[in-house]
């Protein structure tokens, strides 16, 4: 069951990274770390159960994950360019400023 501990440790590092970082890219890396920890757990469970099908599904999971990363990275670039900063707190305060301006928008 060593791999379970390994993926737990990886997930712990990911959560620690989420809590301690305010840069978009670092946050994203932390999220990826958590996702990879989960995937690692699955791949090791599957291989200990001796089923080939699970590994086939994992390739699918990895390729989906990669595609998602591509989209997220593109979004990060756009956000950073638009706000001129990649610090989450700064982006949030700018967002609130825009929200108070948009208050007059009305409904429906």
């Amino acid at each position, binding site marked *: 069951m060593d791999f379970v501990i390994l993926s737990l440790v990886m997930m712990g590092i990911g959560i620690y990274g989420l*809590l301690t*970082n305010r840069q978009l890219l670092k946050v994203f890396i932390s999220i990826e770390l958590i996702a990879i920890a989960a995937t690692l757990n699955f791949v090791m469970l599957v291989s200990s159960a001796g089923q080939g*099908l699970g590994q086939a599904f994992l390739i699918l999971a990895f390729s989906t994950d990669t595609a998602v990363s591509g989209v997220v990275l593109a979004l990060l670039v756009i956000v950073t360019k638009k706000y001129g900063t990649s610090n989450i707190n700064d982006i949030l305060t700018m*967002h609130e400023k825009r929200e108070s301006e948009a208050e007059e928008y009305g*409904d429906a």
Partner: protein
Amino acid sequence: MVTLDIISAWLVWVFPLVACVFVPLIAKKGDKVRNYFVIAVAAVTAAFAFSLVPGIFFGNGQPTESTIAWIAGINAGVYIDPLSILFTCLVAFFGLIIAVYSWGYMKGEEGLSRYYFLILLFIGSMIGLVISDNMLQMFIFWEMVGLCSYALVAFWFKRPASVNAGNKVFIMTRIGDVSLLAAIGILYMSFGTFSFHGIISDMQSAATAGTLNTGLMVTVFFLALGGAIAKSAQLPLFTWLYSAMEAPTSVSALLHAATMVKAGIYLLARFILIAAAVAPLMIALRPYWLPTVAWIGALTAIVGATLALTTTDIKGVLAYSTVSQLGFMMAALGSALNGAASVGWFASLFQMVSHAFFEGLGFLLAGGIIHALGTRDMRLMGGLRKAMPVTFALMVIMVITTSGLPPFAAFFSKGLIITSVTGAGYIAEAVLLYATTAITFAYVIRMLSLVFMGKESEHTVKQHPHEAPKVMLIPAGILAGLCIVWGFAEPLVTTFMHVNLGLTLLGSFTNIETPIFLALLVPTGLVLYWSYYKDYMGLRNIGGGSNPIATMLNHAYFFDDVYSAIAKGIGKFSDGLMHADDLANLGLNSFAGWFVRASSRLKKVPSTTIQNYIAAGIVGFILIVVLIILTVGV
């Protein structure tokens, strides 16, 4: 054997899921073509759904299964039984109503291809959820309806309020999803199968062998209840439903009144059906699980109703009303001591359908009112009955049905629920539910008075309101008709559900509930109505003032405040951790800096001549040779 029913049962969810992909393509041909396409898809889906009704109605009530190989060891399939077909028909019918209504309501909005894509995706996923024959497939669709809900609530993505509401909806329902996933995981570990049929037969054989771990199974039921609480907006996770009102009104009607929020009710009804087939499990559920469900339902009912009485947002009234009515259904499920053989199980599903009709009707009418006045604030409305007579008439039907006055739909279903809750011996819960019916009548009358009665308000005069277009009124009219007749269909529905409860229509009127209902409702209504015409401002600003009760109601019993306090606490913790991390980094940096400085000092040692290099090389070579001799030997 593949029968027509089985083909319909497959197509009814596969067809909209496939068709939704074509919406963006067909939108290239023009908006009108796209709208017709969506309505046609919804109509065909409804036709497939209703083609399943005769097979159930004249059948024996036993489930039919059809499976195909999916992943090795796990089959995908459809499960045709009265419960799944009741939900399928409701979802498909409502999908059609909303597809038509959206044409009028969403006219001129941007991003309508996305909207219609999500609506069709939702219809397919929701039918897939209720017709799945195994829990894994059900869970996938459970997540898909959650995703559709998020995307549709955040439909106006340029408005920060919508986006925040979408996030809140997604995150809060996720708590329940984790709980449900845990329940499914434990069931798979215990029985090695996801299918309902397999779980029931495995449980039965384990029960006969005496090896059924009822304690673990009760835990599974509690985890499933957690999933239902989040999805069906029960205490303490109900606040997301009010935020979800940022969605377009057609979406609120389809997802947050008629169908998606009923997924939790479906889940519990399905689990009770499973438990009913295994006698020891049903006995094990009686001491804790069923009373918990009943308590959660009764408390949610009264909390939702009191909040509906104070909110000034017309959609907010309907949202909290939905919360309250879902509480009724929950309480009824909690009183199903004998599974499907009890009145509670049937009453819950009967109320589920009648609620879909009257709450859906309320939302469709609210959509027209919001269009006409451009606001959701009821304090700005008033005197609309002259400008919108048809809407007014339909709203009166909605008000009568919601409050449970005879002889409309909710009278029968609420009567059954209260009979069942009293019959199960839950006296305190029954009292709460009676109180809720009185408050229910109060809040619907308040809504009707504020919006339609009295003199036209300044805002109303300024906006020149006009009646909603026919394409919005006809779906509402159909729902109003169903509100009136659905209650009388009770004997047909008992036959359809294959429950033998000995219920008669006349019995509903001669019950002990009817006089109590009238005794509660008539004075409440009269007092409210009179107070409105006496210009008693309390009705208008019932949540105003600064007394503790008003503060509590304005803050929705402080649930959201607690949640944001928790979120803020996590944020504080995270900030603290960040500073600690910075300090640690500072230490590490100074440690690394020491090396940097040391190396820069070393750099200053004059070593630019070739002789020094050669001498250093020779010393190194000798050291290596000595080391080799020392470790390996000569």
